[in-house]
């Protein structure tokens, strides 16, 4: 009698456990995947410093630039700061040629930056808009979203050219 009860119970228990086990293994694998993903994609974001390669998001002709100096700040540049960069990749007939040293404003940064109200903002990638020494943009278009903090940094021209303001 007791054995019958036990057997029934154990069966139930096993089936329950089996279900649990399946679930567990499933969840484990998924969590592992997500962890891996997060390790690959979500590394610690840092300042834009020497040798950081940034995407150029205007039509100046440069495609990729490498930061060689942040004009302000000891650790490096952040969102809205100006940097000196060297052009690493460029379109064949653009205004800017490969190997030139240019100035640029960081319009998107993956490292989060505090807003004036204390909240934070961060972007998908590190992107730059090339400017001359006076701060006027070299290109005539700006692609993708830019932060409204540029107004504070006196880059109103970039803001007016931008498609989206975040």
């Amino acid at each position, binding site marked *: 009698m007791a054995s019958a009860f036990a057997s029934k119970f154990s069966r139930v228990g096993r089936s329950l456990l089996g279900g649990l086990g399946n679930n567990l293994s499933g969840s484990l694998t998924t969590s592992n995947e997500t962890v891996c993903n997060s390790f690959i994609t979500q590394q610690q974001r840092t300042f834009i410093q020497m040798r950081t390669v940034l995407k150029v998001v205007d039509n100046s002709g440069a495609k990729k630039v490498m930061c060689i100096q942040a004009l302000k700040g000891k650790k490096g540049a952040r969102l809205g700061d100006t940097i000196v960069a060297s052009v690493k990749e460029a379109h064949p007939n653009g205004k800017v040629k490969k190997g030139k040293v240019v100035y640029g404003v960081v319009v998107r940064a993956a490292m989060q930056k505090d807003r004036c109200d204390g909240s*934070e903002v961060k*972007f998908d990638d590190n992107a730059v808009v090339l400017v001359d020494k006076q701060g006027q943009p070299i290109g005539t278009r700006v692609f993708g979203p830019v932060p409204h903090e540029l107004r504070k940094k006196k880059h109103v021209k970039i803001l007016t050219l931008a498609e989206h303001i975040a």
Partner: protein
Amino acid sequence: MRLEKCWFCSSPIYPGHGIQFVRNDATIFRFCRSKCHKNFKMKRNPRKVKWTKAYRRLHGKDMTKDSTFEFERWRHRPHKYDRNVTEDTLKAIKKIDKIRMDRESRHIARRHQGKKAKEFREAKKELDQSISLVKAPSVLKEDPSLTLPKLKVKVVPSQSEQDRMEE
């Protein structure tokens, strides 16, 4: 000042709180706290995470359709300030809030009611069918007092389960 909604858990984001992530197609994802931000980074679907509003709405845990929700709406034109209107609004907010709370509690009570009755029915059925596992029918005939009562007294399902386990 605008109170935004968290992308993950739909809670309000008060000024100065949280983080916002701007994707390259200019969609803005706002998060109320790092918990929600981390969950987003782990690519979790808020509809599948139990503590979010999205999950609760989807699974009928919370009230979804109600006339009190229609006051909160995105208005593209800013309203001109009117002292009287503002005063009335402030009074109405309290009243509406109370109505919503009452309705929500009623909704939850109704939800619980069905569950309890269902559990009770199932427990009763199990007790009827498998009492023989605990006590053989012959013994039961001899001394019916030793078994659990046949629903003359109100039996809490969980307790009956426990008793069975002890036996």
